[in-house]
């Protein structure tokens, strides 16, 4: 056999072998195809059905929509900035308009790189494949999953036009920070609609889907910026923009929304609302049912609450010597004090504003409702109420501020000390509360008993566990700011207790009412005794331990009480006008005392009352002065703050006290 014949014979053998192999391969692919098809998911018709989930919407009391859960802000392509569409096309799939679901050249190139370049894996998914993956498949990396994804992409291409595919794609891409779809992303990152995105903004956003966490501009701005440059370069490469335009866009400053601002300012409040809704309807209905929820949130008050808290914290940080730059702050949450503020409408219990911490984006732990911190002297009003109700004493009754030792059965004697460490001798009870004298409070609780104090607190709505020991009167059992605000509101209303509430009405997607809140009050306290407490707490604000409120310029009729726990772990101020009651707590999460740089403790008056005052100044701006309602059985007497005897109006120690019918001033020298 000649060489030529041998060569032809060998060549034909190779040819037949190749043919057999190709046939075998084709059969294998065909078998694989039918195996894959068996469990291939059905593609929805029309494709827009993927964005049909109705969102659950939460509204403020003003009607303003404050939160959307679930659902997608699906928008037509005409409402998406062309810059964004060009950027996405250039970066993710520049041959999108030409292929039929798979970019073969890019796939072959990626295969080559993956197989022959050690340590490098290159992807080649088209936009249609990404859409198929996002809609139907997990992120598990298997060849079968990849093959099925490819098949679904081919079907989508065969079933829908390119416009519908792009529209579906841009409405469901994950951008991170909880934003799905370009509209949510534009709102979250830049506070504007998708239609208004500039080239610089659009190119930044177009770079995020590759890895939303890695390129999160809030956490890794430089990486996000580099990625933006890559996107702009791709746009230049495909001819979408000129090099000059890319250069200009890369040089433009990007004004990101403050972190978390895109979601909403009342996130702590909304967390409580969501929890309540989940308990009533179940998570499925809340997140997929399209509820319309009308809440009690007052956005204006909420923003003032946030502002007051932030301003207060800046001052507090400076006092404590923990102030730093914004960058430092993000990494040092635990080294700075936390805060909580709750504002309640007194005559119905509606929670109008709530701040549960320094920043929701840093910590979602809601200190306004979840934190049970010691209220210190903030608990004394419940003690004084119990005393006035059960014992024959009045605000003009004289007690002696002195060192005391109270025997406790089965334990060491209780020896509470005054905060300042000094003792002022005889004084009327009104002054004792105004100056928050512990020794007098201790004598009172010894007489009336801790159970009576707890009973009053319960009537006012305190639900946290309270230990029946003498010291409970000095606030040694933990309570939440929401409980304190709601309980003090009971004094403001003359003894009518309203359960605090967050949700006014819930409707289904068609507007049919599922529930409405009924604003019912229940008499919890005697109106006369409650007023005596209000009068005494007005004294706290006017000239007592809470006088900083007046010094800061809050001049409407108001009452309140400071509170500080041992070693300055907690600083409180809870106060109210006839309409609004607010409670403010500040302290460290990890139970460290608050001391300023001069080692002076920071209590309720320095830590919490300034925040309260600033908030109330804003919250009541423009309101006319409104006095607390005086019950008919109340009369006023001017008494000497030391002796409790009647005093002339101009007497230097005269204090006006509110007395109930039948309560007389005692003679000189008579003490409690």
């Amino acid at each position, binding site marked *: 056999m000649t060489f030529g014949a041998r060569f032809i014979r060998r060549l034909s053998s190779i040819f037949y072998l190749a043919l057999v192999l*190709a046939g075998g391969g084709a059969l294998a692919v065909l078998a694989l*195809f039918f195996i894959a*098809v068996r*469990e*291939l*998911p*059905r*593609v*929805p*018709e029309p494709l827009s*059905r*993927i964005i*049909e*989930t*109705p969102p659950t919407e939460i509204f403020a009391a003003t009607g303003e929509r404050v939160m959307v859960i679930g659902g997608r802000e699906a928008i037509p392509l005409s409402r998406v900035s062309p810059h964004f569409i060009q950027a996405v096309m250039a970066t993710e799939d520049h041959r999108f308009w030409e*292929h*039929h*679901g*798979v970019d*073969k050249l890019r796939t072959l190139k990626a295969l080559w790189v993956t197989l022959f370049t050690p340590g490098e894996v290159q992807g080649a998914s088209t936009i249609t494949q990404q859409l198929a993956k*996002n*809609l*139907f*498949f*997990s992120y598990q990396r298997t060849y079968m999953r990849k093959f099925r994804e490819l*098949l*679904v992409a*081919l*079907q*989508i*291409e*065969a*079933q829908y036009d390119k416009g519908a595919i792009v529209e579906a794609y841009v409405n469901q891409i994950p951008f991170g920070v909880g934003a799905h779809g370009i509209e949510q992303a534009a709102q979250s990152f830049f506070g504007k609609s998708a239609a208004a995105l500039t080239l610089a903004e659009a190119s930044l956003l177009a770079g995020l889907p590759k890895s939303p966490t890695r390129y999160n501009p809030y956490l890794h701005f430089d990486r996000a910026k580099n990625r933006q440059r890559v996107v702009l370069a791709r746009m230049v490469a495909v001819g979408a923009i000129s090099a000059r335009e890319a250069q200009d866009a890369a040089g433009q400053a990007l004004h990101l929304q403050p972190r978390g601002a895109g979601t909403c300012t009342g996130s702590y409040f909304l967390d409580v609302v969501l929890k309540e809704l989940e308990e009533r*309807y*179940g998570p*499925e*209905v809340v*997140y*997929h*049912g*399209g*509820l319309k929820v009308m809440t009690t949130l007052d956005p204006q008050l909420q923003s003032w609450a946030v502002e007051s808290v932030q301003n207060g914290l800046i001052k507090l940080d400076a006092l404590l010597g923990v102030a730093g730059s914004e960058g430092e702050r993000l990494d040092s949450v635990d080294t700075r004090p936390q805060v909580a503020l709750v504002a309640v409408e007194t005559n*119905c219990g509606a929670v109008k504003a709530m701040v549960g911490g320094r920043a929701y984006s840093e910590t979602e732990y809601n200190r306004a409702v979840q934190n049970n911190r010691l209220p210190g002297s903030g608990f004394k009003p419940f003690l004084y109420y119990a005393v006035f109700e059960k014992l024959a004493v009045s605000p003009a009754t004289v007690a002696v501020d002195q060192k005391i030792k109270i025997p406790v059965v089965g334990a060491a004697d209780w020896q509470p000390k005054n905060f300042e460490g000094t003792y002022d001798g005889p004084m009327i009870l009104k002054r004792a509360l105004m100056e928050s004298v512990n020794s007098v409070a201790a004598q009172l609780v010894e007489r009336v008993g801790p159970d009576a104090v707890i009973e009053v607190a319960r009537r006012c709505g305190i639900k946290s566990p309270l230990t029946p020991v003498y010291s409970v009167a000095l606030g040694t059992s933990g309570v939440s700011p929401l409980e304190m605000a709601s309980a003090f509101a009971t004094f403001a209303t003359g003894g009518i207790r309203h359960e605090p509430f967050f949700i*006014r009405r819930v409707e*289904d*997607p068609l507007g*049919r*009412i*599922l529930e*409405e*809140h*009924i*604003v*019912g*009050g229940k008499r919890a306290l005697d109106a006369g005794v409650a007023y005596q407490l209000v009068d005494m707490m007005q004294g706290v604000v006017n000239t007592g331990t809470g006088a900083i409120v007046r010094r800061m310029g809050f001049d409407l009729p108001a009452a309140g009480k400071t509170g500080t726990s041992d070693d300055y772990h907690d600083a409180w101020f809870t106060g109210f006008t006839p309409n609004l009651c607010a409670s403010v707590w500040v302290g460290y999460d990890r139970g460290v005392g608050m001391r300023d740089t001069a080692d002076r403790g920071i209590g309720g008056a320095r830590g919490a009352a300034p925040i309260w005052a600033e908030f109330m100044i804003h919250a009541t701006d423009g309101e006319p002065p409104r006095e607390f309602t005086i019950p008919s059985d109340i009369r006023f007497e001017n008494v000497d703050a030391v002796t409790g005897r009647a005093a002339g109006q101009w007497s230097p120690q005269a204090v006006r006290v509110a007395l109930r019918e039948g309560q007389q001033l005692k003679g000189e020298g008579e003490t409690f």
Partner: protein
Amino acid sequence: MISTVFILELRFDWIERAVGAYLVTTNAVRPESGAIWEQGKQTVAARQTLEQIVADRQAIQREARGATTFNQIAANVTPGQGVMLSADHFRNLYLNLPPEAGREIISAYELLRLASQGHWRRSYFEKAGDGLMVYLLDAGNRVLRQLKITSDVLLNLERQQLAPVETLEGLAYFENRIYTAAHFFEALEAFPEEVRRNMLPNPESLLQVPGDIVRVGISDEAVSGFIELGFEIVDGSRRKVILIKGHEWAVWRLRTYLEGKKRNAEAPADPAKKWTSP
């Protein structure tokens, strides 16, 4: 040939088109699986749950809107699922009550005061034990007045509402205490006016009923200090029973008197001297 096939595929994507077209034909029989379908299923389940909640609520609300008595409302409301009705509806329910029963719920004067203030818009009814709690609400759902309709009151109302279709024999609690109208009114006459007012507090309501009173029954049960009297009235061929409540102490005396008369066939010579007002 292979090269030709390969080049044609690169140029015209015929494999992709063919596979895509084939998959479109099998789409309808494939499973609804994957993330988007799971989400859809959750949406469907949520909608069904909501529909059920709304349907239940609307059914209760519909029944309540058609109610003409407090008892019908009480039969509909369940714990945790009350009903909201208009202020007018409450007024109509109230006006359907016998005056003395209405007074037990709320004084007509107070209701007038509430209505005249112009704030009262709606009424919310919810279950409270075996009775009803009614909240009279303003436009902002603030409670203007809270009323409790106890199970005793509802029971009495039920009797009064059932009574018109019954004869006195149909009401077991009148058994052995049924007297002719003549005997009853003769005995009533034997007491001073102020005692009679306590025995039969609202005789005018009987005068308004057409027909003749033929028999009177006295209940053997006292509820909240009152004993029921049943007046059987014949109006042409129809009979009905009107129920009125008298004060327990007064009705008890009347009954003792009637029983005594039955036994002795004698009345006291001067009952006014024997029966004195409290």
